């Protein structure tokens, strides 16, 4: 072995029962195999989440091996069946991001198969050697903030967000949906503490992560304090101090976003594109898909048909005679990184996306995800200045097409109720277009009790706040939707779709199923279905 030859770093997750014993056997039997693997013992191969693989690659591993008992032999009966499902997901995700599924391998190795263990190791090491080093660059972590600059940054934040105008009236707390269920949380006290200079305790506290950034408080505050902006700023500081919570699925979604931000891979994002949909590489209208294009890989078992959303959007645009630009080189807009403190990641994603859109020559960008649109419209433009291209949510775009008579619909039936997502509604101020677009397709809309700027958030913001409070909010919202008597709950944001469906389909204590069981559909899907 020469020094120039590449020696891969391989991480091997071995289950405690079969595969670890198998590895042991190989060792005890003095079987030779390359020393590149670091073995991490887990109780069951089913413990290995997709994020473990991604994280290992993020931290510098060149390949990841997962070894477990043979199917039928799992010490926990079906743990390895779970592993098989999860690793399939992981493979898809690695392909999508462009790292490639060849950098991971799932193998069943029994306790007596020391030989198999050694052989697998040899083969896998060769495979990785051929692939070469992990192209994922080492992430730059923002430097730890010292107390003085933390105080300075917080003061600036207080000024920028108008937190100083707070008169301690407590209106924010009275309308906060989280404060309703979590008596320890009050938006007012966080602002109070910050303005009193107690920065250190806030930045490290869990309070700034309890906020779901739904902006109910922003919209009600008599003095227009930008509370959500304030929270976001504090979270950025918290991230530098490693005081961040674990997000959903172990942090998988954030991991995926970081891979897109820091990596420069050959992505495979267009798996959702079916042959009859017409798209182009350049043109006037750019359809920014966002993560929804690959979310079926993660949430496929929930039967939500998330790929149906981008399919629906292209179908609508085609039907109006528009061939949108859809690019394989899109990267995540960075919304979820933005709201969990990774400002650097957002900036990288932003640059890639904006350059891509400029290169396509597009004059207008259409979004089906309000979080993408909010990030482009507000956060990107804050950092980069105003863009030359216009931006519109699909509901606004469809509404205009309907007014111009460019879309023809079948006669609609049934009643709908509409969930104003916090990003589409309170953040972007878009309330009327979705309703007008839905009316345009001939359906009757019934409003929930809390509607438009008073609509309640689905409770999970950027994957960071999935907890019992979120669950209560989701159940409340589903009950409200059911009470309207509508046939279907239409969401304008697929996060609302995922989270509300999760509440509906899971075991809920003390809540009769019929109070929350309502069909949930995305706005674009509803509109596309109604096309002639």
């Amino acid at each position: 072995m020469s020094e120039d030859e590449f020696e891969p770093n391989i991480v091997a997750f071995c289950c405690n029962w079969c595969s670890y014993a198998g590895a042991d056997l190989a060792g005890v039997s003095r079987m030779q195999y390359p020393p590149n693997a670091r073995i991490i013992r887990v109780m069951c191969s089913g413990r290995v989440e997709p994020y473990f693989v991604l994280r290992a690659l993020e931290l510098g591993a060149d390949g990841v091996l997962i070894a477990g008992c043979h199917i039928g032999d799992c010490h926990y009966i079906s743990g390895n069946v779970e592993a098989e499902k999860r690793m399939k997901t992981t493979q898809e995700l690695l392909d999508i991001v462009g790292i490639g599924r060849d950098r991971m391998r799932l193998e069943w190795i029994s306790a007596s198969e020391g030989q198999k263990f050694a052989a697998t190791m040899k083969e896998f090491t060769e495979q990785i050697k051929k692939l070469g080093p992990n192209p994922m660059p080492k992430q730059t972590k923002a430097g730890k903030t010292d107390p003085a600059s933390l105080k300075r940054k917080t003061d600036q934040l207080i000024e920028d967000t108008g937190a100083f105008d707070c008169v301690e009236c407590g209106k924010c707390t009275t309308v906060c949906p989280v404060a309703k269920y979590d008596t320890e949380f009050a938006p007012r006290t966080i602002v109070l503490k910050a303005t009193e200079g107690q920065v250190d305790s806030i930045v490290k506290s869990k309070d700034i992560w309890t906020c779901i950034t739904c902006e109910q408080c922003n919209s009600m505050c008599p003095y227009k304090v930008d509370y959500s902006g304030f929270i976001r700023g504090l979270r950025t500081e918290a991230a530098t101090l490693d005081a961040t919570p674990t997000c959903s699925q172990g942090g998988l979604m954030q991991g995926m976003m970081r891979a897109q931000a820091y990596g420069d891979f050959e992505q495979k994002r267009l798996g959702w594109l079916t042959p009859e949909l017409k798209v182009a590489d350049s043109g006037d209208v750019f359809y920014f898909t966002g993560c929804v294009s690959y979310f079926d890989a993660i949430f496929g078992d929930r039967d939500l048909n998330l790929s149906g959303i981008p399919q629906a959007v292209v179908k609508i645009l085609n039907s109006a005679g528009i061939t949108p630009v859809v690019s394989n080189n899109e990267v995540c807009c960075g919304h979820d990184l933005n709201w969990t403190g990774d400002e650097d990641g957002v900036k990288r994603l932003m640059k890639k996306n904006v350059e891509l859109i400029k290169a396509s020559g597009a004059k207008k960008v259409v979004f089906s995800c309000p979080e993408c649109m909010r990030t482009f419209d507000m956060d990107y433009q804050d950092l980069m200045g105003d863009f030359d291209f216009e931006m519109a949510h699909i509901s606004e775009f469809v509404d205009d097409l309907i007014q111009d008579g460019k879309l023809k619909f079948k006669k609609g039936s049934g009643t709908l109720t509409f969930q104003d997502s916090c990003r589409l509604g309170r953040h972007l101020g878009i309330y009327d277009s979705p309703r007008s677009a839905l009316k345009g397709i001939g359906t009757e809309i019934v409003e929930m009790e809390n509607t438009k700027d008073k609509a309640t958030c689905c409770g999970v913001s950027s994957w960071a706040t999935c907890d019992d409070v979120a669950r209560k909010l989701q159940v409340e919202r589903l009950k409200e939707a059911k009470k309207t008597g509508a046939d279907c709950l239409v969401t304008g944001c697929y996060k609302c779709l995922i989270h509300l469906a999760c509440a509906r389909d899971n075991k809920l204590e003390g809540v009769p199923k019929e109070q929350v069981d309502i069909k949930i559909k995305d706005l674009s899907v509803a509109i596309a279905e109604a096309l002639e």
Partner: protein
Amino acid sequence: MKKSVMVIGGGIAGIQTALDLAEKGIDVDLVEKLPSIGGRMAQLDKTFPTNDCSICILAPKMADCYAHPNINVRTYSEIKDISGTAGDFKVDVLKKARFVDEEKCNGCGDCFKVCPVSLPNEFDMDMRERPAIYMPFLQAVPRTATIDRAGVAPCSSKCPAGLSAQGYVALIRAEKFKEALDLIRRTVPLASVCGRICHHPCEEGCNRTDIDDPVAIAGLKAFVGDYVRQQGEDVPTPIEEDRKEKVAVVGAGPAGLAAAYRLALKGFKVKILEATSKPGGMLWWGIPDYRLPKDVLTAEVDHLLAHGIEIEYGKTVGKDLTLEDLKKDHDAVFLAIGAHKSLTLGVPGEDLEGVVHGVDFLHKIADKETVKIGKKVAVIGGGNAAMDAARTALRMGSDVTVIYRRTKDEMPAIGAEIKGAEEEGVKFEFLASPVKIQGKDGKISAIECIRMKLGEPDQSGRPRPVPVDGSEFTVEVDTVIPAVSQAPDLDTLGSKNLAVTKWKTLEADPGNLSTNVPGVFAGGDAVSGPASAVEAFAAGNKAARYIEKLLNGESIEPEPEEKDEHVITLEDIKARMKGEITKSERVLRQHLPDDKRRTSFEEVEKVFTKEEALKEAARCVSCGPCSQCEACAPACGPNAIDYTMKDQIVTLNPAAIVVATGFDMWDPTAASEYGYKKYPNVYTAMEYERMINAAGPTGGHIVRRSDGEHPKKLAFIQCVGSRNPQVGHPYCCSVCCMHATKEAMLAREHYEDINSTIFYKDMRACAKGFNEYVERAKSDYGVSYINSDATVQENAETHNPVVVFDVGGKQQSEEFDAVVLATTLVPRKDTVELAKKLGLKLTEFGFFESPDSILDFGKSGVPGIYLAGYCAGPADIPESVAQGSSAAAKAAEVLANSGGG
């Protein structure tokens, strides 16, 4: 001329300014928009911090103003235009007509009792109703009634006879049926008849049409005519006068009957000469029983005749006696012979057996003659006569087809008639016209028609039908009933002296209905050609008026008919309403069941029952709002009511002007987090003031809207809409901390078991004894104060409002029985317009700007114009009074300097 000062606004600031100036010997014109001075202070219950009764301390000042020799209190007046400079302003003041003479009215309130219209009472924050003739509150100065009359309702304005349709609908709604019938009879003598057969242009104009359906005005007229008669209350009016002059009326149709009735009421000796054996004209001979039962017509005609009218049947002028004979024996003659001669189609075969012209057919049916018609009938025409003939023929067992040369949309018949015909099974052949009636052995066998198409509009405004070449077709029929218009029978009438128009009708001056023969008047269908009954009534009324003038020796020069009153539009109504007009479907008149309709002449459309009529009359949105029912004038002892009053412009010449126009309350409905209008037990502060006021809508009791109980736990929420850049009012309203404290104290004074909590952002109790007041509220009245803003939700079962607030960084909620919102006070809606007229600047919040608000408050920036009170920025009562005196002093300076004071 002695110089004066004008004070715009009669609230406490304006009143103080006026009194101060007057005491200096200066003449003051106090101009106030509302019918009374007093402003907002009159609406309050008590004033802080002394808890003095507000009106008790205000009314003496109001009375002083009115009584002061130097103050001219001009209420119900607005600023129209202003020009000039300090020392010499010229102001045009619009003095709105209140239709009540301020000198004569003593405020007794007899008129309020008889007004049938109910409107939201603005003074009581719409928590109570007031009539259209009203006084805003008991202590009003001047103590004068005012009629709230913004214009005329479209229904009344569209009636060809000028009947106040809104008037009788309002009276019916108030269950004043006899009064409604009396009002109708003043214009339309046959109510039951007219309500059944009129083409109701009133309903076409009804402002409800764009919301849901027009009010069934005609149906209500029929109801009230029937009802009063059925109750036995339809007694003839006693006739007071006794005149010796004799008037002959030729024709007992609607025109003749109307003229005869009017003249008989005035005491003249009236004789009607009717050629047929029955009265009513077309009403009897042209309209079948299923539309107008003969007993109804007879009963109403008998009522008219019972006023001393003589009638001779079977007397035809031109046959049994001549017009000249009539003229010799009478002092005036009214020719109302109608138009009963059928026009012919002018096609070959019209003389065959089986052709019977429309009006002849209907005449024979009405005369109970047996008329033989075949089984297959073709009716030609699209008017009411055609519909009547068709539906009659159908009832006689025939198969009927109506042939009309245009389409259904152009048919002149009343919509309900066409619908009735369709429902009963009459067939229609549109865009067709007969060219020949084919016969065999002298009898009809078929009718040949040609297809028409619609061309350019003709003089009736409808598209001219144009025959399509080569499109002839034949329909087998055994009877043809042409109903293509009628003309008056001038040949029989004879008189060669009478002028005749080119359409072969009598010529009469449209202004006074006189013919070219002196003493002979003519009107109705005989003059206009076939028209409607209501137009005939109008003609009869007009003829009677001018005949009376002739016989009184007055000039019969036609008087100009004033139609210049503004007609109320839906926009007008929406602008003055605060909520939406709730949709409600028209009450439909019950119909005879379909099977009975085809086989009998029983009345098809039943008249409303009393319950149905009241329900339908309640749909009227009171356009006027005054309904012009004229019930108030007769009830007024001092005869102070004058319906002919007009708005006037009074030009004044003040040397200086003080603006003291006050404020409006903000409407928190849009801020749904407070639940106002969503939850019944949430009130605004001014609503609470009216409730707790002993003279208010609840007699001083605090009652929950949901169940009428008095609340035991009361919550007050402060700064609703104020100190809030989010909704656009960043300023502090300056009074709500104190008025909430006052209101909480008063609650305990009213009920020992009530506990109040005030949710505040800050407690602004500065000087003037306010802080001691707050402490007293805490210690002596048990008022709790919680330092938190709040939002409101509701316990849906009990309608108890739930207040959500934040104490100690914890969201908390507490259930109360009622919530009072201290809504902010905002500049009046018309401030922008007034500022433009006066040349004044407004602050960013919309108040009048005082350029040096620190050292020279009250100067407006325009020399000679000064400001006082809330219109210049938030101020409480003591501050407003002080500003009033300050403005008075400044205005007096102008006079001193210009040598006028």
